[in-house]
């Protein structure tokens, strides 16, 4: 199973900034490993973030997002202590959901 994301959500004024680090190889399908073998494509293709049951960000990615992806986004109307949920899905069908309380 994929490793947990690292999510930090910070409230400044009326804006919540969410920063997410995801553990993922983001293989393009074009890279060769140490033995010279082509590593098959394997990357996160969708990301979804929600707050109070409402989407605050959805994303579609290709293989050109960097390995161990980093993403930051902002939304208005969040309050401290409430949770932001982030889910990703990848081309191998794996998925992972984590959450973090707004600080």
């Amino acid at each position, binding site marked *: 199973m994929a*490793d947990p994301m690292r999510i930090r959500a910070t409230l400044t004024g009326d804006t919540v900034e969410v920063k997410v680090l995801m*553990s993922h190889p983001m293989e393009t399908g074009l890279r060769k490993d140490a033995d010279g073998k082509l590593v098959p494509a394997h990357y996160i293709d969708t990301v979804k973030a929600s707050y109070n049951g409402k989407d605050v960000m959805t994303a579609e990615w290709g293989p050109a997002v960097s390995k161990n992806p*980093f993403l930051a986004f902002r939304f208005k109307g969040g309050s401290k202590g409430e949770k932001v949920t982030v889910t990703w899905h990848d081309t191998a069908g794996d998925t992972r959901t984590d959450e973090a309380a707004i600080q």
Partner: protein
Amino acid sequence: MRRRIQQMRKRLLLGGVIATALGASMLGAQSTSTEDALADYRAMFGDDNPAALWIARGEDLWKEARGSRKVSLADTCDLGLGDGVIKGAYAHLPRYFADTAKVQDLESRLLTCMVKGQGMDEAPIVKNRFGDGDRKSDLEALSAYIIDASRGVAMDLPMTHAQERLAYESGKAIFFYRTGTHDFSCATCHSQSGKRIRLQELPNLSVAGADARDTYTVWPAYRVSQGEVRTMEWRIGDCFRQQRVPELVFGSQAAIDLTMFLAKNAEGGKMAAPGLKR
């Protein structure tokens, strides 16, 4: 220049776009020096170092009961300050361990703890010492976690055992040993300050000083070019590869002795690892 970006980040963080401040980057100005541009690039990572993912995984591995003995490293592994003590442990490594009668660096000591303490198989751990994407290295994750627990602690090696002093002398001899098709030694690139290879600054690691401290204390580091956290043994082994010599054996005496030489030269430097490197 770096300050400009930090200010920009701060403004962006507050939600207000200052059109003039962003104007510069929108124009893609070509005017800064290469060094300034690289400093800007590095500043853009802020404190969002993906090494955090390794630290988190390392913590789980440290606390989990594993191996045929079903014990955790947190309960059984002595890194020099007592069983399970990790705070500051890395700042006093490499050091002599009586139970193995050897000077050990962090990684070889972790291997001892996993094999002798937990009863795990040595071969797969060593084979998987450097991770690659989905194939993750336990040693790299554990190292990241343990070293993070020494953040802010000054490098201070015991150097009381004769074998520790011998390791330092041997490491120094290896550092200056020129050989191979290209006549390289570590000293070829790392015995003066202020030079660079391509665009990479080359620290002087041949003597104790600021260069040695600033370099040693940010390893292990998340290597942007590899998308992996790499440890000191990896760093040294990859230097040897580029030195055109054969492959450095993991946990070998040369690896530990050279680490000892570098660690001693970094004495007094405050640990700031895992860092972020090209």
